[in-house]
């Protein structure tokens, strides 16, 4: 029979659950929902098996099945007759399916409980559109307006984004330019870059676009949710129809025995109504330097073909982060930014900074600001200013300060300063770190400071 499954990518995104019919050795039919039918190649599909159930038993006894898939936009059904070939419990197909389930399990508090047992591979014996299922005279459904370029303009867009990145002078600019280009050239309005923090157990958002003030500083635990799983496994993961997947996960959670150690469901970072998510590890050699995460309110965006060019963009970001971490700033004698002139006669606000030594956290007016190395840096700057009246600082002196605990190699100082600068812009714009020349910056204050240090 003549068909090519590769022409129907939207059927295999798991946006609408599919139904699978089997029958047992006696010929009794069984029908069940499956959250996703996975495309393997133009003639093969796979189903994820999380539990041993009647379908598994039936397939062992009688390897024939029928599945109906729905186009997520039009609800046009397609039917496939399948012949069960084998169960895979390792390898690339198993790993890819396992990652998606890991993400859903993590979000729904079922890590280690809801997991993939096997990827069941089927030969597709026939594939047909169910003719007559939709009324041709009814009002046509609105087609989703996918933003951004088609694959034909992908290369030109990639060239443009690459040029923009190349023109950037530092990591700060590189992050902003990249996220702006992804928005303007490709229609990805919601994106963020996260870096591992000092503990290595968390990722912190260093740059974001499309999230308002809630973006920078947001944290994700390693192994938690889509972004944490990408960081832990260093694999690209894309989840289309995230709401469908979460509903499926919640249904499973509701069926699990209370004795099983379920954790509370964790909220998704970012958009509350995201329909799809894609996260890419930022790798230099095999080392994780961050994660690029993109969300969309459109179910089918990002599409399959986006992954390839986003991988190229991710590589450029990773190299930029690595270069910034390795770069030693040459001394430049002349400042390029004029010193700030204090505004005379303006009443100044008081801001109270509290540093908690125990967990290395800084709060401003009782609101959390920043922690770990960026927090220690801020405290050093504010304390030095208070004690010595100094407002000019250099990266070199921060690197030499043993108390800050920066590693000798790849200290990521520049990215930590970016995070600190952006958190201040959000939470306390009266305190600013203004770059003056390479490797130097000035602490500018438009407020009176109260500094409190606690154990």
């Amino acid at each position, binding site marked *: 029979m003549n068909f090519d499954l590769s022409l129907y990518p939207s059927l295999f995104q798991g946006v609408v659950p599919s139904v699978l019919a089997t029958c047992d050795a006696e010929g009794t039919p069984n*029908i069940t929902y499956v959250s996703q039918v996975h495309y393997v190649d133009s003639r093969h599909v796979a189903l994820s098996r999380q539990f041993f159930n009647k379908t598994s038993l039936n397939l062992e006894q009688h390897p024939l099945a029928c599945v109906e898939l729905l186009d997520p936009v039009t609800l046009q059904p397609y039917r496939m007759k399948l012949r069960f070939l084998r169960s895979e419990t390792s390898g690339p197909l198993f790993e890819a399916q396992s990652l998606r389930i890991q993400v859903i399990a993590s979000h729904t508090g079922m890590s280690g409980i809801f997991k993939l047992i096997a990827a069941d591979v089927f030969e597709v014996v026939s594939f047909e559109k169910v003719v007559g299922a939709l009324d041709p005279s009814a009002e046509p459904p*609105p087609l989703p307006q996918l933003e951004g370029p088609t694959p034909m303009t992908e290369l030109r867009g990639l060239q443009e984004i690459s040029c923009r990145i190349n023109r950037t002078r530092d990591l700060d600019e590189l992050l902003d330019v990249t996220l702006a280009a992804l928005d303007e050239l490709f229609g990805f309005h919601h994106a963020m870059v996260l870096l591992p923090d000092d503990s290595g157990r968390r990722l912190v958002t260093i740059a974001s676009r499309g999230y308002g003030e809630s973006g920078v500083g947001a944290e994700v635990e390693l192994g938690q949710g889509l972004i944490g799983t990408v960081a832990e496994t260093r694999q690209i993961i894309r989840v289309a129809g995230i709401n469908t997947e979460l509903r*499926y996960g919640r249904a*499973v959670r509701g069926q699990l025995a209370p004795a099983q150690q379920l954790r509370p469901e964790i909220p998704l970072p970012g958009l509350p109504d995201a329909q799809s998510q894609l996260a890419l590890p930022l790798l230099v050699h095999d080392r994780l330097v961050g994660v690029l995460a993109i969300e969309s309110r459109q179910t089918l965006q990002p599409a399959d073909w986006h992954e390839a060019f986003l991988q190229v963009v991710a590589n450029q970001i990773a190299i930029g982060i690595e270069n910034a971490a390795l770069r030693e700033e040459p001394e430049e004698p002349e400042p390029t930014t004029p010193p700030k002139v204090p505004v005379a006669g303006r009443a100044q606000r008081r801001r109270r900074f509290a540093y908690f030594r125990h967990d290395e956290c800084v709060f401003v007016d009782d609101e959390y600001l920043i922690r770990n190395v960026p927090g220690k840096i801020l405290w050093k700057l504010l304390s030095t200013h208070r004690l010595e009246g100094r407002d000019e600082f250099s990266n070199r002196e921060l690197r030499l300060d043993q108390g800050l605990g920066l590693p000798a190699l790849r200290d990521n100082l520049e990215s930590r300063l970016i995070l600190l600068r952006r958190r201040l812009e959000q939470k306390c714009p009266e305190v600013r770190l203004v770059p003056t020349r390479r490797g130097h910056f000035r602490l500018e204050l438009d407020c009176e400071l109260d500094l409190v240090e606690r154990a």
Partner: protein
Amino acid sequence: MSGGQLLGLALAELIESGLSLNVGTRSADRWPETCRAMGLRVHPDRRGFDVFLPVATSAATLANLRDNGLIAVTASHPPTHRTVQLKGVTRQILPESPADREFIAQYRRGLGVVLATVGIPPQVAGKVVHSPCWRVEIALHQVFEQTPGPDAGRPYGQERRG
């Protein structure tokens, strides 16, 4: 019309309330087949039910039912995936009556409301052909829990494992 299993009152009300319905059958040479259904009506004695299959899309399913009568029907609530599976044997296949048409139209309106809550707009759901249908009368033999999870496939109402 009666089958061997009595459907609980609460469950009977649940499965008539705008759930997504799918039918599984198999052919003489045991190829399974699926088909969407456009309504399910429980018989007054709750030992059987009617399921409505669109004429346009159910040719293979109808051929299977005429061959061996064996049928499985899942009824699922899309927002929660709460699902049950009913198994039974076909007693009769009839063209829809005017009263059936009204029942199907009512089912379709209910399903449209539920689908809208999972992001499927009414103008998309409204395109799905729902008439004319065959009315398939079924004697109920077994009911199974089918909500995704470790207990999917357990006879309905039986205590959970573990």
